[in-house]
């Protein structure tokens, strides 16, 4: 059951973003920014957690989920460390995603060459 929920919720988020891409000529980079910020806002007002509970990876794998991770980390850090948490929470929360992307990509750049599109 959790696979089905992940599939249709994740798929639906992507299909909705496709409307945004096709209808507004928003560049992919802007859409990614929009998604992460929306994820942060939706989590902060408490809407996103129920969705994650229901859909699992269907809600956490899209970039909205990246925003949720950021917000959760921020809140946790503020609760724990107070003011300084405002400056540690974000990067701590997204450390896995960002580090993994940077490290794997760097290794890939050593191994791979840019390829022509056909």
């Amino acid at each position, binding site marked *: 059951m959790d696979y089905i929920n992940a599939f249709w919720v994740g798929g639906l988020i992507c299909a909705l973003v496709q409307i945004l891409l096709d209808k507004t000529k928003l560049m992919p980079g802007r*859409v990614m920014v929009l998604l992460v*910020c929306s994820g942060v806002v939706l989590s902060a007002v408490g809407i996103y957690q129920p969705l994650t509970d229901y859909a699992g990876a269907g809600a956490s794998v899209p970039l909205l989920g990246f925003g949720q991770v950021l917000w959760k980390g921020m809140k946790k850090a503020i609760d724990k460390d107070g003011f300084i948490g405002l400056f540690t929470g974000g990067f701590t929360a997204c450390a896995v995603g960002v580090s993994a992307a940077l490290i794997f990509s760097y290794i890939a750049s050593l191994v791979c060459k840019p390829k022509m599109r056909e």
Partner: protein
Amino acid sequence: MATEQQKQKQKEYEKYVKEITPTHSLPLNMAKAFLTGGLICVIGQWILNFAKNRGLDQEMAGSWCSLILILLSVILTGLNLYPKIGKFGGAGALVPITGFANSVAASAIEYKAEGQVFGIGCKIFTIAGPVILYGIMSSWFLGLIYYILKAIGVFV
């Protein structure tokens, strides 16, 4: 600069160009995005379940899930397969965390020729940088509000 009349003309031209420009079929594109995005999420769910079955808590399982999806995406980018998935899936390949990883890996591979520091070093963030900046900024800003509300006693 442009007068009202010119602006009117420009608007008319823009409208005319939009009318005659063919676009991808939206329902078909949405269906492809749905399928691609859905499948990537299912793979994510499988990793989540696997990690939880090994006794990891929700947060750790989520971290493993991101880590493995990112690794897969970087490998597919290196093999030049991710652009094909992106061409087919559109938003379905862009929205998941794999799209973020693809943008980092594609930049790293492409700009290697321009050097370690000013090539990869700077340009690895070409597409992903804004995501990190605005993610951090928005969570900081909302965190600040949360902090203030907490300080004045709205949250206990």
